[in-house]
């Protein structure tokens, strides 16, 4: 039985305008602080206390500019209503957008995987032929380690 209910937010934190494909300079800690700051602006001390009790930035990706937040189910409406008011992250202007909200991390992972794949396809299509060729060569030259061997599993 689930005793602690959570909500997971998949957020896109994109810089606005022409820099839309720029790499975001970001880490989990910066997102954590920015989220708490905007909750403080909208819901004040009570909001910060409620949200902070179980807030964790599980994952963030600087290239696809996606972050995964976890928050308690009781506080998710507070967080969701504050998030649209986020306008900057470490001094960089950004536009937040909720891509997905899920109750389990598994579903968020599935969504993220699909999202990253589509992002990759987009990047691949927009890359110039020379760069594409280079990447293809690099991928073909990859030598995968034998996982069973590196982990020292039986049957090697």
């Amino acid at each position, binding site marked *: 039985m689930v005793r602690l209910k959570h909500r997971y937010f998949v957020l896109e934190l994109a810089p606005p305008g022409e820099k839309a494909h720029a790499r975001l300079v970001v880490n989990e800690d910066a997102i954590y602080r920015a989220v708490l700051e905007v909750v403080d602006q909208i819901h004040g001390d009570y909001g910060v206390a409620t949200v902070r009790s179980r807030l964790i930035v599980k994952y963030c990706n600087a290239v696809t500019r996606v972050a995964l937040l976890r928050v308690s189910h009781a506080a998710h*409406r507070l967080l*969701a*209503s504050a*998030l*649209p008011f986020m306008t900057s992250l470490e001094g960089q202007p950004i536009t937040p*957008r*909720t891509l997905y*909200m899920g109750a389990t991390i598994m579903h968020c992972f599935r969504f993220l995987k699909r999202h990253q794949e589509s992002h990759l396809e987009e990047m691949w299509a927009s890359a110039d032929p020379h760069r594409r060729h280079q990447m293809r060569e690099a991928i073909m030259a990859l030598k995968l380690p034998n996982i069973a061997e590196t982990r020292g599993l039986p049957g090697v």
Partner: protein
Amino acid sequence: MDVVTEDISGFFDLNISSSTQSDTTLQNVLDRAAMLGYNTVAVNVTADLDKLETVTSKKKKMRKAAPSAEEAAALTDGFPDPGAITFTAPVCPRTGRRMRVLKRVTLEFTGQGDLSRIGRSTNLKKFDLLAVQPTTQAAFNVACQTLSVDIICVDPASFRGFMLNRKLAGLAARRGVVIELVYAPALSAGSVRRQLLLTALTLTNITIGKNMIVSSGATHEHQLRGPHDVPYVAELMGLSPAAAKASVSTLAKSTVIHAVGRNRTGFCMAQLLPDSGESRSGSAGVTPAKKRKTAAC
């Protein structure tokens, strides 16, 4: 735009300002809206009804100046021209279809001027949506009771003193006129946000959160938020979760349909006379349509 036959489901943002900030263009804002997942947006032009030049005063001026043919052609009824707004509708990534971009005009008025101009204007007929922004109590009463419009919007900066009461709100709701809240000014912290939320909460208190749509009022693509984020902002403004969802989808849709009903239809009258036995042709007893426009124009 043929709204009648097309499927108009999806998400709506019925207020995107046509005058954008200097470092962006309307096209950028529309592209961003399509990217975020909106299916229908409305580009808004604001005009102050009391400051608009009237047709008669313009004509008088022209008579004095002995107008050339060009000037006479440029004679409009003083209202903004929807043809001046130019854009290409971007493609929605989800549906693969072009985003529906409507044109909307917002008229500020104090309720003292000649309101019949609104009905007479040919320029206003070309807009898809007609909104009013009353600035006094008298104007509010007129807008809720009689004025044939689609949206009543409130400027949070000037909303002081006068009140909408529940009776007026109910009247507006019955006529299918919705009240609009915008969220873009609230994105910057400070007194503007407080004033906007105060106004929004006051209005939702009176209307019990019914019959309210929430739109962006964005002047920059930075100010647009996704259609799944806006309902949460709407909840912050005092709407119930169900009303908040409806405010960007079903209620906005019915507003667009109301606009079609107001703008693109006419009245038709038929009278059946008793059969006198002399003329048996079917059309003899029916008077021709008094005023008729098809919805497909």
